[in-house]
């Protein structure tokens, strides 16, 4: 992902959600440019999930959910991710 996103992730301003999209954790620290970048990436992810879902006959949300699990598991320590209940937690 572009540096602005990586930095935001490292600073727990942005994190991976359980629905497969990027979420803004700390609204106050998110600049307009960062918000636009997050929106842009989420739209592109949705596009990717749609293609994956239709190729595999699963609902888009399902495809997104599975990807989310991988992304959350793969997130480096220090990054913040959503737990099953949707709470933001910092990876140990």
């Amino acid at each position, binding site marked *: *992902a*572009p540096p602005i996103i990586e930095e935001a992730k490292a600073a727990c301003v942005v994190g991976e959600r359980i629905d497969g999209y990027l979420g803004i954790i700390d609204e106050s620290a998110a600049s307009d440019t960062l918000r636009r970048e997050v929106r842009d*990436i989420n739209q*592109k*992810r949705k596009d*990717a999930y749609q293609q*994956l879902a239709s*190729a*595999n*006959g*699963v*609902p888009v949300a*399902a*495809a997104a959910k*599975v*990807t989310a699990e*991988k*992304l959350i598991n*793969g997130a480096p320590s220090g990054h913040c991710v959503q737990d099953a209940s949707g709470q933001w937690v910092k990876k140990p």
Partner: protein
Amino acid sequence: CATVKVEAPDKPIEINLNVKIEQEVRVKLDREVEDLISSNPDIF
């Protein structure tokens, strides 16, 4: 043979039916998701 006259019982028969149309097992997606993530580094 005797015809048994079946009459509609006076009390309506109650039938409860749950039909759940399940999805395919999703295990298959694992590999595709790995490919998806690796082939789109700029959005994942």
